[in-house]
């Protein structure tokens, strides 16, 4: 087990390097000149002389590989540079907005899990019942509806018409409800179907039949055996959907005026605030990698066969 964890941790390094290199290159092939972006943000008329001076200051006149290594070293120390627009350290700006995004993402995941587990499980148990059909409808709806539109719909009905929740902003628990639902619905669609399929698969397994013939109570079979194993693909899904969630927070934060990191990122794109864009992509990559790692480890604990496989391969 230890070697498996070690191997997984080692695998993180090349993925991380690749992700940062890709970001770095993408920013460099874009037509935006960071020096010009900086001067424009600072309201200074860019002259050739000033541009050359700024390029030198940012190290843009050095070979790409040197620039990349330097950026990487700085990022590892959590030094993302200074925002072109606010002139504040990017890390400080990010840290200020991170709690709001984490709160939103966390509440959405909780909501998604709390709703999709019972739905998926019951839809499998009562296969082809009305409940199953309804859950399928919900899944289609959740998977296909664009988030921004769902956001507007929820605001229109639950906020403007029914006056149950505030339209925008952050503060009370009530502010959290609509954005969380908007963000969670797409996840509910995926997870509930994943769980349903997985439960149905497990129900075909010989151990269920064996347990039944042994006279073990149905409730016990379901909760202690079937659900525990069936939930594993859902965990993978959870890890893999972090990207969807991140992209989702950008949209949802914009629609609900949620004061988080996603909204700040959008503004940075419009302002061509390159250090902020870079830090966002970097943090997103880190989040992806870490989430996948956590999910893998969790799965290992839940289904020890995985780590056996890992070690018997060698």
């Amino acid at each position, binding site marked *: 087990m230890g070697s498996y964890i070690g191997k997984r941790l080692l695998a993180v390094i090349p993925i991380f390097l690749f992700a940062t290199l890709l970001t770095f290159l993408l920013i460099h092939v874009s*037509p*935006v000149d960071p020096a*010009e*972006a900086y001067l*424009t*943000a*600072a*309201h*200074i*008329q860019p*002259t050739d002389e000033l541009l050359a001076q700024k390029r030198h200051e940012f190290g843009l006149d050095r070979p790409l590989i040197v620039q990349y290594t330097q950026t990487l070293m700085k990022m590892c120390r959590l030094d993302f540079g200074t925002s072109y*627009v*606010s002139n504040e350290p990017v890390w400080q700006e990010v840290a*200020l*907005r991170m709690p709001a995004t984490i709160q939103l993402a966390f509440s959405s995941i909780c909501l998604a899990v709390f709703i999709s587990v*019972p739905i998926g499980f*019951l839809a499998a*148990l009562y296969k082809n019942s009305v409940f199953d059909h309804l859950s399928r409808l919900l899944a289609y709806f959740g998977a296909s509806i664009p988030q921004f539109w769902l956001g*507007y719909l929820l*605001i*229109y009905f639950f*906020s*403007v018409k029914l*006056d*149950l*929740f*505030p*339209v*925008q*902003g*952050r*503060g*009370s*628990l*009530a502010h959290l*409800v609509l954005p969380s639902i908007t963000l969670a619905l797409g996840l509910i669609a995926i997870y509930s179907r994943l769980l349903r399929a997985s439960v149905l698969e497990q129900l075909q397994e010989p151990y269920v039949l064996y347990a039944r013939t042994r006279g073990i*109570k*149905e*409730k016990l079979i*379901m909760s202690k055996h079937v659900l525990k194993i069936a939930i594993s693909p859902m965990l993978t899904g959870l890890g893999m959907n972090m990207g969807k969630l991140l992209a989702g927070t950008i949209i949802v934060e*914009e*629609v*609900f*005026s949620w*004061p*988080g990191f996603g*909204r*700040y990122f*959008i*503004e940075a794109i419009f*302002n*061509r605030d390159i250090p902020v864009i870079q830090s966002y992509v970097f943090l997103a990559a880190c989040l992806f990698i870490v989430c996948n790692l956590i999910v893998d480890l969790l799965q290992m604990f839940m289904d020890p066969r995985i780590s056996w496989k890992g070690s018997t391969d060698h």
Partner: protein
Amino acid sequence: MIKSKMKILLLMLLILTTALVGCSTKNTEESGADAGQTEKTITVSWPRDIGTMNPHVYNPSQLIAQSMIYEPLVSYKDGGKVEPQLAESWTISEDGKEYTFSLRQNIKFSDGTAFNATVAKKNFDAIMLNVENHSWLGFIGVLDKTEAVDEYTFKLTLKQPYYPTLQELTVIRPVRFLGEAGFPEDGDTSKGVKEPVGTGPWMLTDYKTDEYAEFTRNPNYWGEQPKVDKIVIKIIPDGETRVLAFEKGELDLIYGEGIISMDAYKQLEASGEYETSLSEPIATRQLVLNTTNEALADLKVRQALQHGFNKQAMVEGVTSGLEEKADSLLSQNFPYAQTDVIPAEYDVEKAKAYLDEAGWKLPDGKTVREKDGKPLELELIYEKAEQVQKPMAETLQAEWAAIGVKLNITGLELTEQVKRFRANDFDLYFFSNYGAPYDPHSFIHIVAEKGFGISDALSKLPMKQELDQQVQEALLSVDEKKREELYGAIQTTLHEQAALLPISYIKKTVVYNKKISGFEFPANRDENPFSSIDIEQ
């Protein structure tokens, strides 16, 4: 068994929902109680966080908020009239280089300290520490020195006469005044201020990044007190959400430029439940025809294009009447705007005749005119994300096709578009001038000055040199009459040469609920409108 489990689950969900709904009701009750008190509050929205409230810095600080706290020496009023604000009067020396201001004596900053010439000088010193950041403002570029002559006399000396100085002193930043308590130890405000202390009618009393900013009436304000006690600016980046929040009653007023979609404005107007209005023109949307392009270098071709589209129909159709058709480059509410401009009427036959005269003939069986075997093909670059430019570009494409001109339209990101404009790498481009209080002098300045795009695009006009000279003279002249003549001549040349085609006048919009009264659009494009408004309890 499973059924009982399901029941428990449903019960839990029910409790959760009730709890959440309970929270929301409690919340609205609380805010309802707040509003019920005697305090009058107006809640508005703004797309971006207000930023740091430092009078001497630019983005991300928002002009609207800076203008609530800080005041200028003189202020810009309708028609370009400059009126006393912190200075009660002023004199300009004969040579146009010395501006002496008599400051009002009863003015206090929001912390109770007095505003006087010493503080005014301290502010200017801070500005001049970073002169390169502010030299876009013409008079800062030629500012020689500032003096506190006595307690209430403040003097600016310029290196050379520059007539728009007074007008430029009305801008929101960087020439407004911070109180002593706000200055850092070294006096350099570019790195930040200690606290936002100003002389303006409002004080920032509560602020949460990206969420809201609350302004309370400044009890020490020297002028007429605002009618409401508080202005709350909620930060709502999305236009649709802004409209929904307004419809729900979370906002009392939506004010700004392009801050909600034209459709949303029309819809709110049509509902009849709210007050809506449009401001006087704040700027002119115009089309720049690049004279360095071989075809466009010919005046006849430019005139043909000008006559070749139905401007009235295009502006009406694309902007739903939110913008007004423009016949002259400056609208009438700007100083020195020409009043006797003869509009270029829509006349397809005339347009075709001009093209024929210019040698661009339509070969048999073809739809695009040619000259020496070359087709008459032009490229118009527009900003992808802007709601007006694209439909206008498409209209022009269709209209000009009818006179045998092939227009290729290219949608670009704003930055890429500006870059190509500045590099003179375009045939046609949508441009709009800066508006009050920056125009008309900033507009004529870029007609002459290279590096902004316009001057380079006009460079093949036969009288360009003369035009540049007229601009220089107009900016330096101390003789009002001569200046008027020069402005007239410059506008006549530009109008006749048809390289800058006025399209429409851009306007600000406002929507507010019927409890609000006394709303007036400020003459200064960047100023806030909050001092005159009132709300019924």
